């Protein structure tokens, strides 16, 4: 007996195809609409408050009026501390992972695992740790230094992973070429590998800066709430994300200032992100030229 064709009727298939197409389009349109809504609120409620004096004056009346100058300074300093600590440490670890230890070997897996675990830890837990270790155990108190160091722990895995993959993208031809010329490992690293991977390293750095700047939960209990202009690293300082949180939750009538601060933060993040993309493009162009 010949095989019977068991395919469902064509009408069913047609309906299925149409439904899938409609689902994909409508889901996408909904996401686009929500994004437009979010963007409209940000611009509509935030843009009106933003002018030069908003960026350059201190907050008044718990932030309802006045500006965000000390908050921008605190944010900047916290991020600088975080990157200044995490970047060298991260680069060195990445070099070890990409250039020294055996791929897939025990050392690589061990370090890799602990980095992946570190990357997965929720930011509020970093906040707990930062509070217990930096603020209390090391006696730094609620300070910009404690906040920056906590953020450094948080962005370290990102910096290491991006730098590692950047270094791995450097073609082996150059490593062999350097070895064949009898160059030392240090010379190969400084003269060839790091310059060749520089755009990727910088792009990773931008990613880390962006992550640090957007962080709130890890900072509330480490760098604190004080919205005065910080005078030293040991002063408490309020980061911009903490400012947004405080205005929207604890200050009645602070929504407009919160939206304005949010807009500033997002514009900063987009600038940093564009820099990262631009650097990645440079990398791509270079690679194409090489081939």
């Amino acid at each position: 007996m010949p095989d019977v064709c068991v395919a469902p009727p064509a009408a069913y298939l047609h309906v299925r195809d149409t439904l899938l197409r409609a689902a994909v389009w409508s889901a996408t349109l909904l996401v686009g609409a929500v994004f437009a809504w979010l963007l409209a609120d940000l611009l509509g409620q935030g843009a009106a408050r933003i002018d030069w004096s908003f960026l350059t004056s201190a907050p008044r009346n718990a932030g309802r009026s006045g500006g965000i100058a000390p908050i921008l300074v605190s944010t900047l300093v916290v991020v600088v501390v975080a990157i200044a600590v995490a970047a060298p440490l991260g680069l060195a670890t990445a070099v070890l992972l990409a250039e020294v230890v055996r791929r897939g070997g025990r050392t690589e897996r061990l370090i890799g695992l602990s980095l992946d675990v570190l990357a997965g830890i929720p930011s509020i837990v970093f906040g707990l740790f930062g509070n217990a270790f930096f603020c209390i155990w090391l006696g730094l108190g609620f300070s910009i230094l404690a906040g920056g160091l906590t953020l450094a722990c948080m962005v370290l895995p990102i910096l290491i992973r991006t730098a590692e993959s950047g270094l791995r993208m450097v073609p082996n031809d150059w490593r062999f070429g350097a070895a064949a010329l009898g160059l030392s490992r240090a010379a190969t690293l400084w003269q060839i590998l790091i310059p060749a991977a520089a755009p990727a390293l910088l792009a990773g750095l931008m990613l880390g800066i962006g992550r640090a700047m957007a962080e709130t939960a890890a900072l509330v209990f480490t760098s604190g709430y004080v919205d005065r202009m910080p005078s030293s690293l040991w002063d408490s300082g309020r980061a911009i994300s903490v400012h947004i949180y405080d205005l929207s939750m604890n200050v009645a009538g602070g929504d407009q200032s919160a939206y304005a601060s949010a807009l500033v933060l997002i514009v900063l993040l987009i600038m940093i992100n564009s820099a990262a993309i631009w650097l990645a493009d440079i990398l791509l162009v270079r690679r194409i030229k090489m081939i």
Partner: protein
Amino acid sequence: MSRLDRDTRLLWSLSASAVLASGLLLLIVLFLAAESWPALSRVGIQAFFFGKGWHPTEGAFDLTPMLVASLATSTLAMAVAVPFGVASALFQRFYAPVLFGQIYLWIIVLLAGTPSVVLGLWGLTTIVPLILWLAPPGTSLIAGSLILSLMIMPTVALTTDAALAALPQSHWAGAAALGLSREATIINVILPSARASIFAGSILALARALGETMVVLMVSGNVVQVPTSLFDPVRTLTANIALEMAYATGDHRSSLFVSGLALAGLVLILAIAARRSGGHVVHA
């Protein structure tokens, strides 16, 4: 020889950095454990799950309502974010006209980069009033889930997108040669081949949702209770830490570290599950 010395020095400083970087995890676990120990040793681990409510100043540390709230908001957020994320990736790859797809990808990337505190602010001023209009008090489980889903949807979308990009073009050629429609190819060939990555991306998104503090703190109401409806206000583990850390002392403070440890453990299990599932995960 001096050059050898230079290499040796380099190797030593690299190793020292790596030890420091990977030792950090140990340090964190050590401190969390040490800070948790007073509460754990005094009231015992079972008191955190089968106690008599959350009255930390009176020595009652039942985390169950917070645990339920965390799981409920995250799971609901997943249920929304995964279909939307996968649809977004399919749209971007296979449906959108070129320029449109680029713009859409750009939107997803922007959403992925939006700080959670900004999403929380938007949710509090826009979504919460809408839900209040449906059923008071507005700040609720459903509000938390919706904003969380907006936060994690890009993770699913970008992971799926990367998985779709990695599929060989020959799938399409083969399917086309058999006369399959675009939808038939997606359902029968594309999605099954990308399944592992989509799963891994979803687990990663779930872990992010569980670990998120600001969104749930701002829009879900922060009342300690096991929710009975979508419109009940709830307090998650993360929000609980953020709310009480400011004034907690003694065993109370210690119990917050216990919940932090539990949270980290939960998220780690998920992260390892995502890794084990073998999919290709994008860090968005």
